[in-house]
């Protein structure tokens, strides 16, 4: 990777592996998604 590409990262937010700024935020979002799916299954299945 060249110095230019380091100076101009592809993403200004998050990391190369995640759109979230920290693992904690990603974990919380995963928990919210899981709860939404669980409520959906509970009410509609």
């Amino acid at each position: 990777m060249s110095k230019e590409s380091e100076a101009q990262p592809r993403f200004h937010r998050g990391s190369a592996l995640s759109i979230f700024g920290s693992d904690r935020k990603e974990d919380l979002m995963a928990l919210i998604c899981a709860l939404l799916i669980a409520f959906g299954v509970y009410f509609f299945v």
Partner: protein
Amino acid sequence: MILELRSYIQKGKGGSKMVYTKKHPALFIIGVIMLAIWFFGSTGMLDGLYEHMAAGKKYKYAGEIANIPLYSGILSVVIGLWQWFGTHKEGHWDYYSSTVAGGMFILLIAMLVRWFVAPEIAAISIAMGKVGDTGAYIHKLLGLNYVVMGIVTGLIIVNVFKIPVWAENGVRLSRLGLKTGVILLGTLYSAAELVNLGGLSIVMIGFFVLGSVGMVLWLGARRKIPNSMGGVLSAGMGVCGVSATVAAAPVVQAKSVEIAYTIGTILLWGVGCMFLFPIIGNMLGMSHVQFGAWAGTGILNSAQVAGAALAYQPDGIETLKVAEIFNITRVLVLPIIVLWLAVWYVKREQSAERVNVGRVIFDKFPMFVIGFILMFALSTTGIFAPANHYKGKFFGNTAESGFKESNLLSADQKDALRAESGKVQREDRKAALGRLIDNGKIMSIDDDDAIRGLINAKVMSKDANKIMKGAHKAVRHTAKKIKAFRQWITWLFAFGLVGLGMQITVGAMKQAGGQPAVIGGIVGATKAILSLVVVLMLVADRV
């Protein structure tokens, strides 16, 4: 290369200074392709293809094709039109909505691979016949299923073609998919399963995690690598890969380059194991429980554990459930390892700055594990399935619990069982059979277990066994909600693993080099081989 991997650990500063949404027709086109798949599938135009791919069996995915591409296709077309023709300004809405294109790109690849490519490869493999004396088809031997092919497709896209610019942001959603899947897995365990698996996993994980950490530290000292490098590598090799590396880094004051070396080593080793473990498992004929225990112990990183487990059993979730229990047990050991490394490092480095270990554990502990436990707790209340369910099935011999009166044994069936009841020796089985004959149905969960034992013992004739199997099936019901969760989990993992493939770059793996790769290789191989031996010797076929 260092700079490339540094992006794994560098977190953004927030405050976007760019517009992420691309004015591009890609998402709209993806939506049209999905809707076309749904249309051709629903109108019967793909029936010939289904028949060909099923190779004499029933095509398994027609039900999925009738639903999933419709909803995802509509969503993609609507958002795609807005992305293509709308005006976009920088901000949160732009940032998060721009991920939809990449997310749908991954989903489309997962659909194509699961529904068409993998079944076609299987059909070709079956047409080629079984391989020599193995008695197995080549696609089974090599583990060529939708999970492996999805990851390989992702690897090819990122390393050969590059990820399209409009999809780059959304590809970073894959880990969110995997984490959501792990949390939802909590709904599938019953208390009985968790007790059985939990005891086993604590013993195995305790031994192998502590053993691996100790071995890396010992080898590191002998090979004279810096203590900070040894410390961070030991956490990565011992516990759960990238999360453990990041959690341990502050207590051993690891430099960015050392974290990068560790993550490179873990990725290199993890990806190799993800493809190799299922092939070895198939060659050894391991049961789902044995393979799950081995993958959950021997593979370093959470995502690759899930990949190997699903690759081993692509159309079922039993292996994944066992593997994830082992993986989660491993993550729960993380605080102990961080504490150990903190004490070890301060003792060896007199000048080391003391860090607040409790704070590090609190800040870095993976919260999705807590989510898994929360979901399991929610499930044990019985809101998704009766609390006594086992693997999603529950006992019920009343009309309210799903028993059909038409399944009561007929007089002839009762006579047939009565005529052979003298063959049964064990008192519990004899009593259960007596109650079955008297009532025409199995009367309790214990009786059901006894009748199943009687069937497996094969002491009665085939006809009698057939009657008892029918009686057993009549009182075992599949929980619809559990079935729905299985479907969600399968797709979340499929999504996450295709995306994971797109994040494994050759450059990132090349990051492993020199001493860390040598030590990682020795410890990783030792752990994989020893855990395989222990699993084959100690883990029963069923739990």
